[in-house]
């Protein structure tokens, strides 16, 4: 197991070094910082950005939009997922709209939402819309996987609704729900950033990227992208660790 873990770490390190080497080589070949800046230049641009207070205000605004849209998506997605899992009518009722959302390109929703919402609200609305099918499907799947044999046992032994939910429904739904939440969390960052690039709110990393792009500051665009990747990846992993720990902890509680 230890050998496997160290092999995995080595593979990750090698992969990272390889990617940077390819980037460096490609930048040398192109030899135009406007088209493809060197990794060193991007890192310098990143350090300069980090020193500016306004940069963190942009990051903070995007972070808040992500949190708001994620919470809304979890609440709405769980509610609709419960309805879909509990009733085949609701499952069929929501199936078509959710399929439409899945099939529609993000950019279409962003452009449409610009007519309906303020530039600050567009990324939130679009993010909720795009992550809703993920949460709904995950929650509904969890409900569909509830063990009907255990349900029958609970009925015979006159379990209370609370007991049935805590000990039979929740253990079945929770893994699906959490897996959906982690996926939705990762997706939120991407959609919010895309929404900000097109809607240009006063504060947001998407606005920052768009401004840098207009001013042909390619290194800045790459540096902001790097920040989004780090925040999205890091927070997604952190969220996954928190939920995994909480799932383990639920097994300790009593009746």
């Amino acid at each position, binding site marked *: 197991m230890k050998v496997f873990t160290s092999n995995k770490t080595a593979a990750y390190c090698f992969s990272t070094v390889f990617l940077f080497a390819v980037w460096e080589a490609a930048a040398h070949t192109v030899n135009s910082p406007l088209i493809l800046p060197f990794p060193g230049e991007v890192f310098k641009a990143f350090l300069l950005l980090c020193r500016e207070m306004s940069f963190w205000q942009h990051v903070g605004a995007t972070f808040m939009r992500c949190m708001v849209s994620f919470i809304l998506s979890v609440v709405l997605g769980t509610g609709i997922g419960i309805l879909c899992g509990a009733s085949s009518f609701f499952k069929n009722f929501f199936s078509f709209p959710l399929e439409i959302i899945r099939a529609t390109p993000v950019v279409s929703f962003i452009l449409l939402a610009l007519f309906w919402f303020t530039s600050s609200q567009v990324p939130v609305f679009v993010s909720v819309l795009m992550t809703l099918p993920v949460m709904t499907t995950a929650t509904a799947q969890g409900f569909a996987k509830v063990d009907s044999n255990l349900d029958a046992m609970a009925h015979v032994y006159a*379990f209370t609704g609370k007991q049935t939910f805590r000990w039979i429904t929740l253990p079945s739904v929770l893994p699906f729900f959490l897996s959906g939440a982690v996926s939705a969390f990762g997706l939120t960052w991407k959609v919010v950033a895309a929404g900000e690039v097109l809607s240009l709110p006063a504060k947001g990393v998407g606005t920052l990227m768009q401004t840098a792009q207009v001013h042909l500051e390619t290194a800045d665009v790459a540096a902001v992208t790097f920040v989004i990747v780090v925040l999205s990846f890091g927070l997604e992993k952190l969220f996954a660790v928190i939920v995994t720990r909480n799932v383990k902890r639920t097994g300790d509680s009593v009746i």
Partner: protein
Amino acid sequence: MSGNALSIVDLSITRGEKKLYHNFYLEAETEKITCIIAPSGSGKTTLLDYIAGISLEHADVHGDIFFAGKTERPAVSFLFQEPRLIPSADILHNVMFPLVNVMTRESAEKRARLFLDRVQLSEKCTSLPDELSGGERQRASMARGFAYPSKLLLMDEPFQSQDLRIKLYLINTLRQLLASEKRTVLFVTHDVQEAVILSDRIVIMDGSPLKVILDERQVKKQNEAFVKRIASFVSGTAVL
């Protein structure tokens, strides 16, 4: 109906195109073990589910059921084919879950521990079901069934998936529990040996829809009537 803890009257169950039961009647005597033998897949589990009040999906059900002459369903214990223990809760809590709703938590724990001791699982109280063997899980299920204060115990081939040694051990445990805790038992199986070892009365069912083709009680009654008629004939009070 006073002698019967359970009476099924004119039951018809149809699932899809298949008629599982049609104009079906069955009675189970109070505190006796009635064993139903029928082929696999014929609808035995469906009958027990109906008695236990478990909703029969995609089935059309007609008929009446009386528990000691009343239509109100009393508390029922059920030993399923599989132990059906909650995987995330330890054995003690699995036995306690139904009890905490009908008695105080302290009494529930005391009673759960008592029955776990009777099935010799007192040392496994804190184990999760996955940490037990198949036989131990079924014993935990028995402890739950007997700890639950019910008059009627339904058993759906609970020894089916066990090897012979464990099966005999489980049957012995069950007999000891039944000796101390009297219950009306309805036991379905397709294993004649299990039926002969455990039951007070055997009912054999077959056909589609299922119907009783041999009822030990009827045979005994007929034999008694025959013996009476012989006795009357011998004493000269009746003519054969």
